[in-house]
């Protein structure tokens, strides 16, 4: 009996030594560096750089997603970004986490110029350098570069920055999807 046990143990030990060695070799020889996924995720994020996801900017958030973080924390991106992320990562899309904010219409910052005192605080706050102006002179927002992150609003000592919702004009207008009638209801049928 004991010899049987001994043989068994020895065989397994031999195998384990060989395999263990092999794995040790592998682990040392082929380390994983970097994560190309981060780039891909970052490319999907809206780059508003608003920090609503709880990370200082889109890229840190991308890194957190690559490490398995939740994909539903970016309000500016909203459903479409979540969907794109889910698609990219092959996971189920989840609804936007309201704790990070809600999806809003696109906005831009506008400085009421006659009230601006030229304190440059908004310039320091803007993550994409979308505000022009020098100290003690009036500042303006470059509309085409503003991401609508509203980070400049709070620092302004005189509250002269407004976030204006961009109204669609005739050239930016697009067709809406047909009214959702997955299956028309009885009521509709009667009325039509």
């Amino acid at each position, binding site marked *: 009996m004991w010899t049987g046990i001994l043989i068994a143990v020895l065989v397994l030990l031999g195998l384990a030594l060989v395999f263990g060695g092999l794995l040790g070799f592998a682990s040392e020889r082929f380390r994983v560096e970097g994560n190309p996924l981060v780039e*891909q995720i970052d*490319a999907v994020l809206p780059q508003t750089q608003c920090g609503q996801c709880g990370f200082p900017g889109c890229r840190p958030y991308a890194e957190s997603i690559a490490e398995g973080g939740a994909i539903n924390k970016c309000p500016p991106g909203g459903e479409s970004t979540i969907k794109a992320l889910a698609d*990219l990562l092959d996971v189920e899309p989840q609804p936007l986490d309201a704790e990070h904010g809600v999806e809003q219409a696109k906005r831009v910052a506008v400085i009421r110029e006659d009230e601006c005192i030229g304190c440059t605080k908004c310039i320091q706050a803007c993550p994409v350098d979308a505000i022009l102006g020098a100290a003690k002179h009036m500042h303006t927002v470059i509309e085409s570069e503003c991401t609508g992150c509203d980070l400049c609003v709070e620092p302004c000592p005189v509250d002269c920055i407004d976030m204006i919702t961009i109204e669609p004009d005739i050239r930016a207008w697009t067709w809406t999807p047909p009214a959702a009638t997955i299956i*028309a*209801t*009885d009521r509709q*049928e009667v009325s039509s």
Partner: protein
Amino acid sequence: MAFVQQSSPHAHNARPTSKVMLWVILAALPGLLAQTLFFGWGNLINVAWCIAIALASEAAILKLRSRPVAFVLRDNTAAVTGLLLGLSLPQFAPWWVSAVAVISAIVIAKQLYGGLGSNPFNPAMVGYALVLISFPVAMTTNWAEPALLWNSAPGFGDTLVAVASGQQTAIDGWTMATPLDEYKHKIASHTAVEVLAHPTFGEGVAKGWEWVNAAFLIGGLVLIGLKIITWHIPAAFLGALIAMSLAFGSNADQYAPLSLHLLAGGTMLGAFFIATDPVSAATSHQGKLIYGAGIGVLIYLIRSWGNYPDAVAFSVLLMNFAVPFIDHYTPPRTYGHHKARRGQPGRGRS
């Protein structure tokens, strides 16, 4: 003045889904008539019962899902499913067999996927295959013996009793193995001539069955004429079956002859009414050809070497399973493009 607001086009031709389905039902009537003439009242009773159950179960599920019941029922698709099951089940199948088949077709195969248009598998065939494996006895012993309606028993009453009670006594002596089944299990030990002497084959190819198949063929041609189905699936289906039979089955002492493949069992019903179910079939022309041919080949394989004498249901389901894949790789070439774009869009977003 408030005008109607609508996206173009503003004109529509008038053949709604409900009418399409109605046409399918009408086109199947010659087949049903032939079945009644040669196999008695069983199919008629089955069809009526199956349609009733189909409508009832669809209504129940719609109610559960709080969908508009009357509106959806009026699209007639549940009725088509019921009809096709009624046409395919054995004439004397007990009522509960039909009920299980129809309910699983409508509930599992159709409504669980979201109802009309979403089901990846042909509901009727899911129902059929499910009862075939569940109740093999009831599904193999209840085929009526072919005879002309007016000079044969059992009459309508007896048939109804047999179906409604599930008891065999009323129909004892009026059942018989189907020609394909008979051929399949006899040919191993007999010659073709001996096998064909069995009354189930009659004078022609397969007594009664040949007429039923012819009637379904005619109905199918009507559907093609009405542009409700295209020729691709039936042609590929029958073509593949013929090709396989010519390639492998030349020896009648070993394999069923081509005529039997074409005119016995559910071949024509399958080719024109079942494989062509638009929801679960492939979409592009090329895809339809592959899909139809796949069914034909599988039918021949299973009939010749598998356990099941008739294999329309399984073959259709197997190819249904491959449809999304086929669709991925057979989009048509679009105007102005050199080649069709196959497969999926790349993952990279630019």
